[in-house]
């Protein structure tokens, strides 16, 4: 199979240099422009690294996103950062989005958070799925998960349409809650409906990334929504329990464990990739991590991605 690619997903680990710069900035040892210069340097270097790995659709690593929701406080005045909340099973926290009013989109500061707007190239963006935001938010306005999910979908539609005009070609909706908390039939129907609506009104390539275990029912609902592809965490999902994609959609195969420092060896990855192609029969296989790589230090993330690149080459060349 030649339709096999490598991509980054979500927030990438900050380098030790950027970590030092953010700390220095917080302690008022450097200015904002010095911090931004380091950030830019790190974004450039991450893009160079991806090009070396042969990655075609680049991610900027969201290196200045404090969490997956925070920039939306800038794009929507009515989303405020709330209390620190533990993020699923990781020893990390996000600020719970507090919904204080009817959501409206303001695209005037997008360039601060989407590196691709100012750089040339083919980019992807990882964005919170509407139902994910709706389930974890402190909703003081809509008071109904469905209503909030729908309102946030409108925000995403405006955002995606704007990003599409500036070189972004692929959008990954990130929904760890789908696997972590599960979803009943009614909730899956909502996810299906709003995803369908988002695709219809953006005509964009939308990938839906689940993390933790993915159920058959969830995968079927997403296929029904018309997504370009589905992301699966294969450290928590048995490949044999998934439906066959029959060559209709892509598989975003999470086969690097972002929670583990053990670097997956090439032969294990090769074995997995072959199995995934044989059992799931995706249109294209995009190999990636099971969740944001930010949960390992950057040097480990680099080793993992390098091994995955090698494994892909071996599978492509049938060695």
């Amino acid at each position, binding site marked *: 199979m030649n339709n096999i690619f490598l991509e980054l997903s979500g927030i990438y680990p900050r380098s030790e240099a950027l970590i030092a710069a953010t700390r220095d900035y917080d302690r008022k040892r450097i200015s904002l422009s010095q911090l931004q210069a380091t950030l830019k340097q790190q974004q450039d270097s991450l893009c160079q690294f991806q090009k070396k790995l042969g990655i075609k659709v680049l991610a900027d690593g969201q290196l200045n996103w404090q969490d997956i929701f925070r920039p939306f406080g800038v794009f929507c005045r009515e989303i405020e950062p709330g209390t620190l909340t533990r993020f699923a099973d990781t*020893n990390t926290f996000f600020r719970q989005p507090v919904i204080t009013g009817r959501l409206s989109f303001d695209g005037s500061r997008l360039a601060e958070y989407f590196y691709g707007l100012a750089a040339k190239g083919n980019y992807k963006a990882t964005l919170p799925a509407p139902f994910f935001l709706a389930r974890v938010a402190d909703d003081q306005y809509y008071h109904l998960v469905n209503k909030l999910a729908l309102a946030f979908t409108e925000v995403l539609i405006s955002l995606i349409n704007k990003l599409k005009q500036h070189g972004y070609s692929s959008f990954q909706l990130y929904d760890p809650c789908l696997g972590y908390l599960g979803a009943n039939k009614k909730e899956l129907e909502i996810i299906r409906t709003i995803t369908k609506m988002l695709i219809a009104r953006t005509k964009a390539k939308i990938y839906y990334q689940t993390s933790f275990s993915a159920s058959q029912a969830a995968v079927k609902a997403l296929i029904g929504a018309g997504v370009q592809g589905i992301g699966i965490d294969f450290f928590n999902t048995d490949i044999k329990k998934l439906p066959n994609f029959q060559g209709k959609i892509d598989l975003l195969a999470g086969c690097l464990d972002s929670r583990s420092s053990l670097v997956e060896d090439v032969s294990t990855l090769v074995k997995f990739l072959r199995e995934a192609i044989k059992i799931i029969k995706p249109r294209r296989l995009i190999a990636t991590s099971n969740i944001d790589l930010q949960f390992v230090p950057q*040097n480990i993330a680099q080793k993992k991605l390098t091994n995955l690149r090698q494994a892909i080459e071996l599978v492509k060349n049938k060695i």
Partner: protein
Amino acid sequence: MLTHEIGSLAKPEWRVKSARGLPITQQNIDEAVSWGKRLGIDTDNLVSLLKKSKRTAEENKEIHRLSSFFGLRLMEHAGIDIVYDGEQQRTEMYHQAVSQTGGFEFYGHVRSFDNKYYRKGACVDKPKFTKAYHLEEFKQISKMTRRPLKVPITGAYTIGDWSYDEYYSQRTFDIGTSAGRSARKAARRKFVLDVARYVIKPNIQALVKAGAAWIQIDEPAVTSHPDEVPIFVESFNASTEGLRGTFSVHICFSDYANLFPHITKLKNCSQYALEFANRDSRNLGTRDSDRPGYQVLKLFKKYKIPGAIGLGVTDIHTDFLEPVELVRDRILYAVKVMGDHRLIFPTPDCGLRTRSLDIAYEKLKRTVIGTRLAEAKLV
């Protein structure tokens, strides 16, 4: 009702700089003197140490000891009943424990939130007890006060959860299989239980032998994997099995509903110190609707969990100074739900290290005053 704190306080600049070998400014010295005056501490010895351009290792140790003394006095001065030193001699709850335990190596930094990071260790060999890493600190602090002490110690589950595991799960690499997943889960249980038996228990044993009456096992990560709460229960029991003393647990910033019914199997746990204020409203009142952050208390009642509640009444993530009436109402509500004021120990939500000493002091003071107001209402 007895008040206590949870663990950490911010370290004064003079303490941080002396540890890093950085120059100490006059402003840092003035800060030490000013706090000394406020807390009734003679700072002559400290000031002469801080003024030295070069200090010996022993002198730096003395600065750390004095920092403990400041932390302890700050709590006493605020009126806290059961005290410790604000973890002034420790680096950080995870790093302190793992760096002094065999079988671990440290890798790079991982982000905790915003621009806050921690150095994450990896278990690369069977964890080994190498020294009782809080013993010296406890011996020093017990000589500094007559108030009862509560020693915080990082728990086995949290050490397991916050570390990478390259030892127990090294042969569980299968990707995309149920067998691989089950093997990783079994490896996790073995890892945590080994830390409990071979690292935490010997540490607690040494503290108990030295006279520590109350050990608080810090397990902030417990409910982040709901299906692993039983592993925490096993590890708590293994850490305290056969030991005499008062043992409690501190858990925070997670969904406590996941603790039930598993914690009915906890043996030897006399108190659950939990964060509540962070999730509560700032309105006064003792009705259910006034106190959304404290609803989980009903589960403790429902499951008849033996043991008291360390009741977080001040939010450690904001500089907002809780009015004493708000603290009072949070306590009164908890007493109403639990049905017995002796089961309530008012505390801050968690360690106060992210707040300035001024704010931390005020929050501790308000915890105490609010408690006294609640007591007056209960009479």
